[in-house]
């Protein structure tokens, strides 16, 4: 399934033993949970947290956990694009010839990478964005949007009244993940042998063309696995913005836990949901890698 793995899969004795041990382990955990954990299980509650009947139309509508899931997906999507752009820019700064650009790149990466994400979000949101967001005026724009234009706005960005926090969260996450992407891109560019630079130079290409046409395509290919890794971890890291009142999946779940007291049903479901988002992404990236690897 993965590149370079051409041997046919065989199911041998070792696999049977490993599977049996795993099943035993799982059974033991379930047994432990049942005997030592005092808890009234009620899985019946879970579907109603995702789907509700709209009291006005009588049809089905997404409930809060589904809304939280959509917010997480939107958040990850925009922050992923932002992180890729910031990462590329800073990564190129890191390998630039000019000392100024190198200092900027290095400074950015070291500051962001060596500060805990939680503190970064707190500082960025409460000190920076509360000053910047009113200046941009997107909050007012969203608030005064005509009724017939609201649907596309809410489809793209969620609740229009909470757009300030959402945009701030996207920028925060993009800046944060951008620093890691920058390091991946830098290492990718530096892993390209000198000969490639020299060969491209001997063709008479400018530095910009050498970077764009020769070095970067190879570097991106070399860095595909860590980049994919970073994107998947972005999906999970996005839950830290719940601290700044962005109603994403983890935040909605913790609210639901408080209301319903169904701690384990809800957290197990949320864990499974994150897995269901991240696993297909892993498969997708593995596929892309295989394609570009050829």
């Amino acid at each position, binding site marked *: 399934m993965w590149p370079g793995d051409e041997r046919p899969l065989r199911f041998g004795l070792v696999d049977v033993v490993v599977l049996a041990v795993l099943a035993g382990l799982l059974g033991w955990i379930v047994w432990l949970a049942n005997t*030592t*954990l*005092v*808890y*009234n299980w*009620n899985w*019946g*509650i879970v579907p*109603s*947290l995702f789907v*509700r009947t*709209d*009291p006005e139309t009588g049809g089905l509508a997404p*409930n*809060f956990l589904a*809304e939280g899931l959509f917010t997480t997906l939107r958040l990850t999507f925009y922050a992923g694009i932002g992180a890729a752009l910031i990462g590329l820019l800073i990564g190129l700064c890191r390998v630039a010839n000019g000392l100024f650009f190198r200092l900027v790149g290095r400074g950015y990466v070291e500051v962001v990478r060596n500060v805990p994400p939680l503190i970064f979000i*707190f500082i960025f*949101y*409460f*000190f920076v964005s*509360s000053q910047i967001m*009113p200046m941009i005026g997107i909050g007012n724009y969203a*608030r005064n949007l005509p009724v017939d234009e609201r649907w596309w706005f809410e489809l793209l960005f969620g609740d229009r*009244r*909470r757009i*300030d*926090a959402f945009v701030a969260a996207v920028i925060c996450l993009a800046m944060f993940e951008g620093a890691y992407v920058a390091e991946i891109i830098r290492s990718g560019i530096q892993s390209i042998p000198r000969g490639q630079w020299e060969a491209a130079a001997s063709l008479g290409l400018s530095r910009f063309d050498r970077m764009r046409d020769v070095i970067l395509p190879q570097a991106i290919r070399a860095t595909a696995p860590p980049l994919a890794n970073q994107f998947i971890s972005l999906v999970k890291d996005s839950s830290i913005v*719940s*601290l*700044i*009142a962005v*109603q994403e999946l983890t*935040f909605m779940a*913790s*609210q*639901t*836990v*408080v*209301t*319903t*007291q169904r*701690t384990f049903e809800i957290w197990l479901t949320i864990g499974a949901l994150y897995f269901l988002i991240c696993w297909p992404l892993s498969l997708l990236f593995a596929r892309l890698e295989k394609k570009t690897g050829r």
Partner: protein
Amino acid sequence: MKHLLNRLLDRRTALAAALVVGFAGGLAQAQDTRQAVAGDSVIEQIKQRGSLIVGLSTFVPWAMLDKNGELIGYEIDVATKLAEDMGVEVEFVPTAWDGIIPALISGTFDVIISGMSVTPQRNLTVNFSEPYSFSGLRVVVSREHEGAISGLEDMNRADFTIAVRRGATPVTFAQQALPNARLLQFDEDGAAIQEVLNGNADAVIASEPSPSAYAAEYPDKVFIPFDDLFSVTAEAMALRKGDPDALNFFNNWIAVNWRNGFLEERHDYWFRTQGWADQLPQ
């Protein structure tokens, strides 16, 4: 000589004129400041925006999500009536408890109405209105200690573990009243009571009505050893500092609604009855 006198007089008039102008200027400035303070008040911003933005943290039965994902609870009733009386819409911003005061200060919402009890420490950072609710802490203890606990002093031992919600009033209370007991802190009360049910902690201290609800849900695991309510606290709305107009408005709104019985009636409904329980997801 006359010349000199004239010059002196001139100087005096000039001085007097300067004083008058200066005084008038001072008056004008004072008026400007007053207008600026009134104009900057969050009350003006709310009226201009047409909506009151309320920060809160979910907590039963103050603010909870119902089956349809709508917020219900005592606080929701209070904030809704408050906005209604101001003639504006109400918007709720559910926020993690740890971030709720920074979010108020940075302007994410106009006011915190979230069962926040008045403490001097918090009051250094935010302004509090008059209280719109009073509540107390109750102790709920594991059945393992049945018969052995008749007062707080029986729990003040190094081998007694108490689970509480982080950053809330019970922490302060436990540290003062039970200095010898071991304290475990959790993000929410549900995790704290779970720790007792699992046998890793001996008691939970929390604001009513949660302890009574736990005792009712797990009657063979936990019980309420004594009826005392501890460290009765006053819950108030929290506002940004430096806004006397807003403080005056919220204070008087609360005073009016104590007198007309609205606050007491709603409080009784949410804290004394269970009529709302079937609105929750189940």
